[in-house]
């Protein structure tokens, strides 16, 4: 096994990990804010990817411009979904019932995509899809770098919102202790709605990033939800930095393990990590005060 092969794998792993980090960030946010297990998160990713593809095929513009439409659209959809559906679940069984509810939403999205766009597998044709440049002998594909930069920028924005704004403070307060947050005057219902919208907005960015460099089809989301769930458990449920670090570690781990083990076994890294976490440190390796309550 040559050094250049390993270096290239690390580069690919970092790029992949960045995308995983963004995709997992939204998922952990829902859980953090509302203890909602959002099975439909990856279905919304694929929906955003389809919207990006449709946008490009209709207008001929770069798919990144579709973000101008999809990010606000998904934010509003998220707020509405939380206010109209999730908030009606009984708090005592919220986590469990949210699995059923969001599972059905995932099926509806998948069915609608199949109905509207057919099951034909689509790919956005980009003039720069195969373009890459070399750093220290490793090739970095432009599309993967764009996806990585999008992911990094969104995570940074999410971090700044959480740490530097009043809304972020209220959101974190809601995550840490909803009753206490209400006592000091936080409107936790509204904050929860916006938090959900924020999570769905990351799905819009993530889906667009995904669409740049993959072939999409309506049932693709099932391939994503498993690894993403594993990532947020390993990172500690509800912890965005935890999810980001776990995503990076597992992404690089997957890319490197593919060299000796092949593709079939390398994808088990997520589930091995999931089992190991649940056995050794169920609250997650990073962050994750929340999981202790379950």
């Amino acid at each position, binding site marked *: 096994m*040559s050094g*250049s*092969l390993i270096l*290239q*794998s690390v580069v*690919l792993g970092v*790029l*992949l990990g960045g995308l995983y980090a963004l995709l997992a960030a939204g998922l952990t946010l829902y859980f953090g804010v509302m203890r909602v297990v959002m099975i439909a998160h990856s279905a919304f990713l694929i929906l955003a990817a389809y919207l990006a593809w449709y946008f490009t095929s209709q207008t001929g513009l770069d798919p990144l411009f579709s973000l101008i439409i999809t990010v606000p659209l998904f934010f509003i959809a998220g707020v509405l979904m939380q206010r109209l559906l999730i908030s009606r679940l009984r708090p005592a069984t919220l986590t469990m019932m949210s699995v059923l509810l969001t599972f059905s939403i995932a099926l509806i999205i998948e069915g609608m995509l199949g109905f509207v766009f057919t*099951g*034909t*597998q*689509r*790919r956005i*044709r980009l*003039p720069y*899809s*195969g*373009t*890459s440049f070399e750093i220290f002998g490793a*090739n970095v*594909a432009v*599309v*993967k770098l764009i996806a990585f930069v999008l992911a990094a920028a969104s995570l940074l924005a999410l971090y700044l919102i959480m740490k530097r704004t009043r809304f972020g403070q209220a959101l974190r307060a809601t995550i840490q202790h909803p009753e206490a947050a209400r006592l000091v005057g936080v409107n936790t219902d509204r904050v929860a709605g916006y938090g959900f919208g924020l999570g769905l907005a990351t799905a819009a960015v993530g889906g667009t990033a995904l669409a740049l*460099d*993959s*072939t999409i*089809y309506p049932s*693709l989301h099932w*391939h994503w939800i498993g690894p993403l769930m594993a990532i947020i458990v390993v990172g500690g449920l509800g912890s965005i930095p935890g999810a980001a670090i776990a995503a990076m570690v597992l992404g690089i781990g*997957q*890319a490197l393990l*593919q*060299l000796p083990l*092949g*593709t*079939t076994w*390398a*994808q088990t890294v997520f589930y091995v990590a999931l089992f190991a976490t649940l056995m050794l440190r169920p609250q997650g390796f990073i962050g994750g005060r929340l999981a202790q309550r379950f």
Partner: protein
Amino acid sequence: MMGHERREGRDLRVGGAWRRGASAVVAGVAALTLAGCLSSGNAGGGESDEDGPIQIGISLPLTGDFSEPGKGVQRGYEAWAAYVNENGGLLGRDVELKILDDQSNADRVASDYEKLINQDGVDLVFGPFSTRLVVPAAQVAQDYGFLFVEPAGAAEEIFTQGFDNLFYAAPAVAQDHYDYLADYIEQMPEDERPKTAAYAAMDDPFAQGTAYGLKDRLEQMGVETVVDEVYPPNTTDFSSIANKISDSNADILVGGTQYQDAVNLIVAVRQLGYQPRMAAFSTAPTNPEFPEAIGDQTEGIISPTGYTPEASWETNAEFVEFYTEMHGTPPNEDEANAWTTGQVVAAAVEAVECADASPECQQSLIDWLRENEVQTVVGPLSWDEAGRPQGAHLIQQYVDGEIKIVLPEEAAEADFIAEKPAW
């Protein structure tokens, strides 16, 4: 739809007999139904009325994983039935298809054929789509002594199950798809042949079969295998496989692919700057979406194909015309193989002049196909004792932006590009 009265009539008759026989016994409903099925099959199979339509039972994956190709096969079967009925039917009788949806489920497909043969008393059966569903379906047909011609099960494992009623209605089994390409490489001067080869195949009997068929041939010629990767069907990220292939810098890249895997793999190796001298992928390049997805970089990409509307076989022009009139688009491979299945069974039926469920008739159909060659829209077909067709696939290649037949030379529409331009 059309044959409802006849079927219901028979069911009532049998049901009535059952009620009388079973009136004394209050047993489990399931047991009754099962026994009812069996007696219905015997009663129905023997006394098929000579003037009614010939009923053909089919189960297809109209929903689930294989729904896209499944619907293609359905269109092919329906077009064939419409064509036959417009042209005087089979043995002077109309044909009528009874199509069930097996939801791409292997358990379901077996019970579907069980039901078609037993309960509905069909006269003939046609096969479903894809290896995974063909094996259980063929087993049921075998148990009842039915002739089983199938449009889509090219993997070797189908022909090693010991079926003596099965015929694959396509030019070649998966292993032989690349034969013309292998022949071409074999006759190249030794110093011009590729020296190293990289293989990436989906963990799927058909996709792997195509790639490994070529691998066996190339290894015999002394082409060194430098990468041999198998990936699960749900793989969407091909960057690591591409990394290994690119690192090996193999002369020829062979993909045992279906669709999205080929597209993703091609983009991934291009991102790593890998330029093979030859690149061959099964299935994907013949898909109309493929040039949409890959863009201008398709030039020189090779693919074996079992069917193209341009092929000059006897009955093909008529088929393409009829199908295009019916659906507005020319047929693909799935539709063509379904049509071929119809042609093969029809040829046997016309030759032995029977079409009913009796073991004698089914056996004579089987025996006739063993001995004879049938002219079809995918060329003349004949089979070995396990039902393997004795041909090879045409080799197509993207030449000047369009996919064209390049091998064998006698069927070629364009010259083979031996040195693939950069992608």
